[in-house]
Every structure is written in structure tokens, then in C-alpha cells.
């Protein structure tokens, strides 16, 4: 799967999804989600991180990251994939 792609669409989740099935923290902070088109592969639904909500645009270049998003009943951190804007200086520096 290509690790980079472009935002196909997006929105901000501004209310806490119902539990179940959601397992994120009780104290809710809005989060960004979207679809990212991975060239030649698939358009994948994902959380979007590392960007101001107001800066998200269709076509923006993104890459995969792993983020913690919840803590399970045993106190372990639960992680998920997400996409964040490409950090050019990190990638090419």
C-alpha cells in the first residue's frame, strides 16, 4: 500500500460518538477524519492528525502515521493508523 496520498474528502467530528461502539476517552476533543486517496490502490477512511482543522483541504498531501487514541480496560494504550500532512523536511532532510 502506498504510504502517501491526498485528501479526497474530510470533516471534523464535533460530538462524541456513541459508546458502544466508540472506545475513545470520555473527555471528548473534536477530531478530524477524512478519506485519503492512495494512488492506484484505494481511497481509505482515516483519522487526520497533525493539522489545524481550518487548514485541511481536498488534495492536501498526507502520509500514514500510528497514533494512540484510547486506553483499554487493562490500562493499555490502543493505537490506530491515521494520516498526517507530509513533513517534507523530515522525509527529504
Amino acid at each position, binding site marked *: 500500500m502506498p504510504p502517501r496520498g491526498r485528501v*479526497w*474528502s*474530510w*470533516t*471534523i*467530528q*464535533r*460530538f462524541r*460518538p*456513541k459508546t*458502544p*461502539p*466508540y*472506545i*475513545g476517552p470520555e473527555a471528548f476533543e473534536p*477530531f478530524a*477524519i*477524512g*478519506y485519503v*486517496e492512495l494512488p*492506484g*490502490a*484505494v*481511497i*481509505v*477512511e482515516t*483519522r487526520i492528525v497533525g493539522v489545524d*482543522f481550518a487548514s485541511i483541504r*481536498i488534495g492536501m498531501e498526507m502520509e500514514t502515521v500510528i497514533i494512540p*487514541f*484510547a486506553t483499554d480496560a487493562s490500562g493499555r494504550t*490502543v493505537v*490506530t493508523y491515521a494520516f498526517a500532512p507530509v513533513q517534507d523536511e523530515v522525509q527529504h532532510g
Partner: protein
Amino acid sequence: MADVFIVGVGIHPFGRTDGLSGLQQGAYAARAAMADAGVAWNDIQFGFGGSDASGSADTIVNELGLTGLPFINVKNGCATGGSAMIGAWQGIASGQYDIGIALGFDKHPRGAFNAMPADYSLPDWYGSVGLMVTTQFFAMKLQRYMAHHGITSRSLGRVSEKAFNNAVHADHAWRRAPVDIDTILNAQMINDPLTKYMFCSPAEGGVALILASEKKARELGRADVRVKAAAIRTRPPGSFEVFAPGLDIDRGGAPTLLASAAAYEMAGVGPEDIDVAQLQDTESGAEIMHMAENGFCADGAQEEWLAEGWTQIDGKLPVNTDGGCLACGEPIGASGLRQVYENVIQLRGHGGGRQVPGNPKTAYTHVYGAPGISGVTILQR
């Protein structure tokens, strides 16, 4: 297939009714529809009906009488009501029966629907991480549509403003007070670009239709509103639907395009022949996108349509004349039949303050829902 007529309609007001179950609201609607048709429960030869969250519709016999009639339960998501109507229509069009009932009702808890991944054959992580929320889908389909076709937030506001203005005149609507466009646009954001006044809410309500053969309709003096088409379609490859963790790179059609084309062909009419339309408005952008998907305008032309007021009651194509889902709320099993109810009222000229002028002759309904299903009906006077 023989012609089929809608000879009676009944509705239990949408919204919140403490103390009445969904089924009881369905029974209320059934009694009203039978009174409207001038028939009794004993006269009803068969039924199709359903709810999404309020149990089996065939238990309606506990409320209305143990006549032994065949009654088939329908559970087809947002197309439940439309599917019940198709069942009743086919039963009569085939010549097997002369008169039957199509019933839909529901009663949902407050707040957004909390769908579970397993019910949609999806892995648990999809719900755990917070992606299994219906409102997100509507927002993202719309966000992309607005960017590609130049639709503005003001147009979203205009759709909601129209819905509440129309509902003032609809006894069965839930939210019946006008809301000005600035309040709509500046309200709490739910899923960008949609504010709280741009989303419908899960609700309660019931609707019943009595359908009859031409012979029976003439006996009852009610051979006025004819079912010209009723079609349901599931999704084609490459469509964009609720609860889709991934989409094909190759983009395709939409279930609405299929259902709409099938209904126009069945009825032998085109979009230009439609005098009034009830379109799925889960949120205000859905009404805008569905104007194009159902063939009423080109993608992007909605900006002009809404600015000019062409979908208002006195416009060239009035849309959602009772306020639609935005003002009536969404009891899933009943919504599709509410649209048909509203069209029968309009075709009879009984719309009162929301009556479409000029004696509308041909009326269109459209539902859309998870997991990619659409239903369209066309009625003619």
C-alpha cells in the same frame, strides 16, 4: 400489470410522543388511512409493513383485529416504507388482491444512530476508533460535492430555512417554527460543513397507505391518485455510501441514479414532467445533491435554483413541501411513506398553507439510506 390507486392515507404526527409505542403510532396511522378510504380493517385483504427499531409490523393485528389476513414484515433500512409500498402495489397490480395496506412506523432514541459494526459486516475497530457515525458520511460526501461543484454554505442554509418555513403549515411535522438563515448558518457545527439545523434528527411516527385496484377504487369513489412507478435499487460498483472504510479508486454511480432511472422508465415520464418532489434530506446538502441525482438539475446549478427560490412552494419545482426529514425528523420505517402521504395530499389539493399552486398532476418521492439503497415513487392524478 393493472393500475393501482392510493385510496386512503393516514399519518401519526412525527416527533416525540411519550406513552405511545412505535406500533401504536402505526395503528393510529392505519385507522386514519382506513377512515380516509372509507373501509374497515375487515376489508383489508393483505398487508406489508415494517419498522427499523420498533418491532414486527405484523403485530399490528393485536391493535386492529385478528382477521387472519396475510401480513408480511419488511425490514429494509431507510427503504422499509417504500419496500412495503412496492409489496402492496405488486399484490394488487398482479391481480391477486383488490385492497391492501402498506404500513411504516418507528420510534428511535434521541441522538445520532449508534450503528454496530457487526450489523454491517464490518470489523470492530471501525466503530471503536470513531468512524462509524452516519453524520460523518453525509458531511464528507457533501464536502467533496461542494468543492467540485461550487456549492456554498449559504445554499445549505437556504434548504434548512425552506424546510422550517414549509413545516409551519404541516400538521404532521415536528419542528414547525421558522428559523432564519443566519441562525442556521451560525449554529453549532456538528460535522463540518453542517450545523445542527442542517441535520434531521431520529424521531417517531407512523404512516399508512391503503392501495386498491381500479375496480375497488371506483367503488370507493377514490380513483384519483394512481401509482405510476415504485422502484428500489441497491448500490452499483464504485458508489460512495455510509459505513465505507475504503472506496474504489474507480468511481462509479449511485443507487439513486438507478432507482430514479427505473422509476422514470416505468412511469413513462421524465424529470421535466414532475410538479412536486419529496427528496431525501437527511441533511440539507443531501437535498441539494439529490436534486441532481434525480435528474432535476445539473451538478452545481443548485446554487441558482436555491438563490432564485425555485424549490419553494411557489417555485418551478417545489421540494419537500412538508419540511422533509429536516422538519419532520427521521423515523426510519415511516419516512418513505410520509413522502408518499405528502404527495397524495398535494395531488388532492389538500395542502392548505403549503399547497403547491397550479393543480399539481405528477409527484415524485425519493429515499436514500444505509448501506446504499434508494427508493423512488411517482404518483399521478
